[in-house]
């Protein structure tokens, strides 16, 4: 027991001998949070939009004006002829083109429903879909405003009985992607620290030969592993605490649920990543190899976690594969606790899946470590 303490003490001495390390500890989460929080966004803003106003009436102009007053669109021009529109899209000067038909005003006044034609640049399917949604909202809003201002029109339209759906987004009312992305960064930081520092810490001792030196002391393999794993776990927890602080300061997003539960779940998650880190150290002879294998693992873990790409969008076979990814569960848990304050009782399936993986991977890695390094 005391030996483990000395190993941990030695590890911390080495970590803090490196002044740069302290900087990295605080700067890394700051950069990741700011960069990822702002850059990884599925919000659509300032979409270049061009119009063809074939009606040229007060109503059509008032309708077009509305696009100038939202942050979502950026009107770049108004044409008289709809045939001029495709060239705007072809040259990438606009991503959306709207044709206001002739008799737009007359049709509204008469209670007929004018049809808008919309041309969308579909290269970026996500932006196209989202901006089309915004456009529909603006048109609906315009329609209901007119009805409100003109009671006679409203009376005539009452017979049509429009069914309107009103969507309300809970937990993330502004539909901001940063609320979704940012808690995920906590997982990434934990992943990086534990996988990379653990594997490279062990492999580094292999490289300089001290691992063999430690092996011929009376330390047991299990003590040696604990001596490596404890300092990096502590570091990982310090790191996510710092990260949560930054998330609150920069984005104003605080943990909705129990912070204690969040840490406990993190501990379960870390069991897997430490296991992976130890495993990597048993198959790598140099730090470069460890780094390479670590990246290989991390890319897959992140891509198949639903962090960037929703799992539901993946092919079936790949979706099954994601069940083997502990990050998949941890991301769900993090977001639930962070944004909704979900209690443990509702997170049990994910927690148990993660725990099973953690114990399995960690156990296998330790067994392998003992066989390789005796």
């Amino acid at each position: 027991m005391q030996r483990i303490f000395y190993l941990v003490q030695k590890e911390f001495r080495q970590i803090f001998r490196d002044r740069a390390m302290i900087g990295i500890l605080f700067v890394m989460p700051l950069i990741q949070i700011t960069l990822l929080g702002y850059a990884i966004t599925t919000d659509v803003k300032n979409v270049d939009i061009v119009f063809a106003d074939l009606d040229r009436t007060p109503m059509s102009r008032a309708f077009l004006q509305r696009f100038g007053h939202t942050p979502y669109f950026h009107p770049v021009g108004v044409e008289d002829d709809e045939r001029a529109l495709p060239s705007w899209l072809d040259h990438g000067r606009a991503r959306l083109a709207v044709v206001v038909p002739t008799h737009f005003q007359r049709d509204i006044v008469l209670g007929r429903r004018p049809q808008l034609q919309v041309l969308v640049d579909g290269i970026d399917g996500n932006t196209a879909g989202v901006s089309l949604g915004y456009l529909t909202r603006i048109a609906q809003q315009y329609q209901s405003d007119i009805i409100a201002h003109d009671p006679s029109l409203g009376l005539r339209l009452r017979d049509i009985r429009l069914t309107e759906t009103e969507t309300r987004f809970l937990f993330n009312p502004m539909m901001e992607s940063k609320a979704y992305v940012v808690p995920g960064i906590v997982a990434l930081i934990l992943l990086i620290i534990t996988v990379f520092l653990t594997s490279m810490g062990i492999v580094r001792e292999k490289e300089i030969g001290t691992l063999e030196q430690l092996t011929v002391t009376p330390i047991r393999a299990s003590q040696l592993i604990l001596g490596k794993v404890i300092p990096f776990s502590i570091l990982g927890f310090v790191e996510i605490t710092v990260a949560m602080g930054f998330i609150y300061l920069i984005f104003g997003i605080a943990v909705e649920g129990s912070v204690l539960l969040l840490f406990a779940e993190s501990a379960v998650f870390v069991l897997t990543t430490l296991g992976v880190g130890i495993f990597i150290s048993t198959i790598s002879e140099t730090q470069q190899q460890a780094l390479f294998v670590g990246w290989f693992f991390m890319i897959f873990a992140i891509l198949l976690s639903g962090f960037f790409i929703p799992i539901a969008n993946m092919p079936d076979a790949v979706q099954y594969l994601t069940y083997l990814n502990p990050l998949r569960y941890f991301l769900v848990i993090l977001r639930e606790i962070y944004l909704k304050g979900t209690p443990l009782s509702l997170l049990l399936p994910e927690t148990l899946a993660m725990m099973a993986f953690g114990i399995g991977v960690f156990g296998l890695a330790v067994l392998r470590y003992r066989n390789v390094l005796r």
Partner: protein
Amino acid sequence: MLIEVRNFSRSYGTRPAVSDLDFTVRRGELFGLIGPDGAGKTTTMRTLVTLLRPDAGTLTVAGNDAVRDTRSIRSMIGYMPQRFSLYPDLSVEQNLRFFGELFSVPKTELPARLERLYRFSRLQPFARRLAGRLSGGMKQKLALSCTLIHNPVLLVLDEPTTGVDPVSRHEFWDILRELRTQGVTILVSTPYMDEARLCDRIVIMHEGRALAQGTPDELIASRPATLTSLAPSLEDVFISLIEENTRHAN
């Protein structure tokens, strides 16, 4: 007998590294494994200190089996591999203390041990310097000090002076001989004949086999004077043994 090696064989894949090696080391002896690269010196030492398993034969240290009793062997030996390793980012004293702590040297006794080790290594003035900033000779002395911190019964040193400057080499062997007078048994490997001459007994190894063993004087006496060398040196003995061995093999 402190070390007994009987019929020891070990191969890496199909390539034999050591075949049927026999030798014994008495308590308090300075014993040398002598031979060129690839002779099997390192394999023998690594097996003895429980880092490798033998394919055949038995190796014991003070009656402890190198396969079964790994932990008791590990606590009584000090092993310094060819490329000894310290933590370059820890100071001289931190390195020493760390190894002392791992070997459970009592806290009350640690200062006295450190002082004794500083006395012979003369590293006291550099106690706070990072190990990575020491010269080659000083690193070697620190490494030796680290393997001595727990007062081992047996020191196993694998080519401790390879790549060390002549002055430091000389100093290092002075330290070894002083240690022997204090009763530490030392098993050392070296490719240098002048160092072999300083051992109490040696075994000459070549391509995994023991060609001869005895005191350096016995080995020299066992070779008759030839026309080319009237008074053969250990080096002559070594070369003629190897030539003989190669002829047998063909």
